[in-house]
């Protein structure tokens, strides 16, 4: 359960424009220890928002606070406690999973013994231990995704942002990943996840935020959203109704 009174993430009037506004004066608060699902149609601004939080895109304006740290002013301090997992895993084909985790641990400056234990535990949990000496180039998409996830978790981030983390995973692997993520949340980590698989959000998220045209158009627990949506049966119905309404309004 959340114990830290400082929110894990606070976005205030966050804005990013390309040819058109991708993120439009976005206000968002994610509580510490929360599993938060960020939903929205393609081009809604989900990935852009997460990339700005991760320090991959400079925001045009607005504020980003991660556990009270101003991420725009103190990016290094913020990155120390954040992990970001993109939808396309970024790995080194010529390294094996253990070498990849050694590299990540070095980047985050982890104490070697603690890093080794954490790496072994993650590889065991994700079913990669037998493959720890095989180069990633021969791995399936799902295995690469799991190696990347291990890389995101090995430094025990307080805020973990996952962009479509279940893409390419079979049912068994998806279950492993979901269990691992919920366990991390139980241990006090905060997770923000984007997904197109609404059932996943419905099943594991504490709260859901729905983005459209770079703005948050709905937010709350599933029960709260159902009430707001006039008693929609499922998150999928609610999501489609909200997006359709937003489309008509735009």
């Amino acid at each position, binding site marked *: 359960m959340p114990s830290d009174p400082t929110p894990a993430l606070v976005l205030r009037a966050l804005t*990013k424009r*390309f*040819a058109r506004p*991708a*993120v439009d004066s976005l206000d968002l608060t994610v509580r510490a220890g929360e599993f938060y699902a960020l939903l929205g149609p393609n*081009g809604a*601004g989900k*990935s*852009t928002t997460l*990339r700005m939080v*991760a*320090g*991959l*895109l*400079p925001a045009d304006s607005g504020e980003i606070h991660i556990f009270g740290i101003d*991420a*725009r002013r103190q*990016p*290094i*301090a913020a*990155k*120390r406690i*954040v*992990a*970001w997992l*993109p939808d396309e895993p*970024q*790995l*080194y*084909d*010529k*390294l*094996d999973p*253990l*070498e990849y985790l*050694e*590299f990540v*641990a*070095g*980047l*985050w*400056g*982890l*104490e*070697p*013994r603690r*890093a*080794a234990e954490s*790496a072994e535990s993650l590889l065991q949990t994700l079913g990669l231990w037998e493959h720890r*000496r*095989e*180069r990633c*180039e*021969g791995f*399936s998409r799902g295995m690469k995704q799991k190696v990347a996830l291990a*890389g995101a978790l090995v430094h025990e981030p307080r805020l973990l942002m996952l962009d479509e983390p279940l893409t390419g995973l079979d049912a068994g692997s998806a279950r492993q990943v979901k269990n691992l993520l919920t366990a991390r949340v139980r241990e006090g980590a905060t997770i923000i996840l984007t997904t197109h698989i609404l059932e996943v959000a419905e099943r594991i998220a504490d709260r859901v935020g729905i983005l459209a045209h*770079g703005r948050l158009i709905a937010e709350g627990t599933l029960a709260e959203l159902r009430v707001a949506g006039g008693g929609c049966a499922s998150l999928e119905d609610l999501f489609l109704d909200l997006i359709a309404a937003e489309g008509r309004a735009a």
Partner: protein
Amino acid sequence: MSLRPGTFVSFVAHDLRLGARGFAAIFGALPARRVAAILVAALVGLHLVAWPAALWFGGHESGADGDRFLTAAMRSGVFFVLPWVVATAMTAVTRMLYQRGDLDLLFASPIFPRDALAARLFAQAIEAVASVGLLLLPLADACALQGRPHWLALYPALFACGLFGAGLGLMLALALFFAVGPRRARAISQIGATLVGASAVLGAQIVAMLPNSARTWLFDALAFNSGGDALRRLATLPERAAGGEPAALVGWMALALAMFVAAVLVFGGGFARAALQSAGAPSSPGRARTGTRFRARLGPTLRLKEHRLLWRDPWLLSQIMLQVLYTLPVGGILWRNGGATGTAGIAFAPTLVVIAGQLAGSLAWIALSAEDAPEFLATAPVTRGEIERGKLAAIALPVAAIMTPPLFALAFVSAWDAFCALGCGVGASLSAALLMLWRQKPARRGLVLRRHSQSKLVALLEHWLSLLWAVATGVAVFGSAACVVPIALVGLTLWLIRPAAPLGDLRSASAINANASPARADIEVRAG
């Protein structure tokens, strides 16, 4: 007129179209009309250059030793072209097997894999001979225009050479694949193909190094023609065909076609099997090791990663070493010529400096522009400057390892020359690395030898800096203080091309896209 889909001709047309588009990509965003104008101008230019060469050939052909000269010339040509075509075919077959591309689509379609292979190999043969044809065919045209039409036989002879070499290349690549297994075949075949391809260039350079007596002996050996037994007549078929002997031309074309068809028929099934085996197979075996090497410091972590990635990519390594290999014979010639005047270092030291600059440029490009996970690195709690410094430190080791032996050799001849080469080599390496640091452009690692086509300006600057360092070395070896002039010019050049944004902005980890290259900007746009 559209071609019937699924036919041999349609597959060849498809592959040639892809090849042509790849070639056109070298010209960037230039309009098609301007590209066509450049190509026509290049073709005219090549013919103008070939004209005096054709006159020279004509002078020798009409001499008393004309026939022997023609035999030697054609035989040399075959020695040059055939290995090149074989190497290109081997590389293409290996690439087809491992990079797969549209191979899965082709194999999943209701066509025989053999047909797809034949078409691809045929297109490959055309592309391979086109590259050497650019040099040889203008010479044939010029000779024909000067009244020696038999030179036009080069056209069909070269085409036949392409077919023969492609067939042989396919056989060699697949034989290697089945001999050493899918895991090792890629690395060995790519290195082998690189060496075979390089042998032609190196051979020409080595010939240039030989003393006159040895060259005369070589000419006699090449021009030797007993003309007697059937085996010799078969072995000399390509050169006689290229020389315009009608019966030999027909025979060579028939033999080449037979080789191509036989290779496809016999090895077509093997290719399909190899493609299935190679699916998902790592390019080379991972080496089992014990213990872990977790470390908390950034510098050693980055160095280890860069060295592992480099060491485990033998093809990439061979491409980089090829630059050194190509330059060595030139260095040898310069050493020999310089040695005759008693000052070997005057020529050899600048060569070493140029090699150091090239190596550092290539390795810096790989480490900086061809980073496999740039966005992942950008999320790490370290500044971009720290990462870049770590990477540049990582490339210093291989450059030093490669340059140390020749520097030692030079030191035995002249300590001062070696000192100059060392100082200027360090300078050339640093300036090449800085250029790559300031002008990063994301690309794949495998494109290291084509990095100059990314930006003509960067290519020009890299050569310019190398030239300045080479001049500085030469002048320094003489002991002249004038060496500061080219070094000052290096400094001025670097000052002029330094990044416009303040270093603080560039170093800020959050501003990774502040100096966005077009590719990164593209990523930004797509990110929404």
